[in-house]
């Protein structure tokens, strides 16, 4: 684990992963979009509006997945004082915030024609909105506190506290009455949607995972470079 604490090690790993992640991303997103738009059936109740699902559901999954990545990174940073783990959480946050925002926006765009409203304050929508604010709070803490060490600790603690929201999102549709439908893919008894719709959904989901790897590597590089720059500036001020 601590081998990856060294940015040089990370860069070597990232260089070898990047072409694979990029290829998987292009292939799965291209084929996923093709099936989603051209070669999947319209829904018997929802008509063509069901195609919003192929953007909405994977984005919602990613919002939760990236949150867990951020939480695990925060835990590692707090317990083992792992410097790259702190950076990993910081690098992941904007990507997760973007996916959560996309889940909310595409959900609203789907809700308007199907439910008759862009928004309803039910358990599912509200807990996902809370997740979006947790991301914003995490990023705001990094910005607000001058000392990176202290900022990182505060942000990491917030990220860990926010983990309680993840099961709330997952089970909100079972616990409370809502307009939002219950799970139809991530079920113990298997998916209940037709394979013609499941395939494009899973292709986009895999594509989003690969996208996350690509975006995450670039944001890690950005954060590592920023840290290098600030260390060099500090040395210069110290007359070193």
């Amino acid at each position: 684990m601590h081998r990856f604490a060294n940015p040089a090690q990370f860069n070597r790993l990232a260089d070898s992963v990047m072409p694979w992640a990029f290829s998987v991303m292009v292939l799965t997103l291209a084929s996923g979009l093709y099936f989603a738009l051209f070669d999947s059936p319209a829904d018997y109740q929802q008509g063509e509006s069901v195609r919003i699902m192929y953007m909405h559901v994977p984005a919602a999954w990613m919002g939760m997945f990236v949150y867990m990545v951020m939480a695990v990174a925060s835990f590692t940073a707090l317990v083992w004082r792992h410097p790259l783990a702190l950076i990993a959480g910081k690098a992941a946050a904007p990507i997760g915030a973007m996916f959560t925002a996309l889940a909310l926006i595409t959900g609203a765009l789907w809700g308007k024609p199907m439910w008759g409203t862009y928004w309803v304050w039910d358990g599912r929508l509200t807990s996902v909105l809370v997740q979006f604010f947790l991301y914003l709070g995490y990023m705001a803490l990094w910005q607000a506190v001058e000392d990176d060490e202290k900022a990182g600790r505060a942000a990491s603690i917030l990220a860990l506290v926010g983990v309680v929201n993840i099961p709330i999102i997952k089970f909100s549709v079972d616990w409370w009455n809502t307009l939002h439908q219950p799970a139809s893919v991530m079920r113990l008894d298997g998916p209940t949607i037709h394979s013609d719709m499941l395939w494009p959904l899973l292709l986009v989901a895999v594509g989003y995972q690969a996208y996350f790897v690509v975006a995450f590597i670039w944001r890690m590089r950005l954060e590592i470079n920023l840290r290098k720059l600030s260390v060099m500036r500090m040395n210069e001020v110290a007359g070193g």
Partner: protein
Amino acid sequence: MTEFLNMGGYGAFVWTAYGLSAISLVTLVLRSRARANAVLLQVDAMRRRRKEEG
């Protein structure tokens, strides 16, 4: 083609969802890459200057 764009009357919702998703994903990754490279150039420039100064 018009029929495809119309999406059974839901075109505005469907294409906004797809368009916003595509724009967001592309923008985030390209901006991250551009910033990472820009900061790297600053780091390299600083290193060179320090070397010249001895």
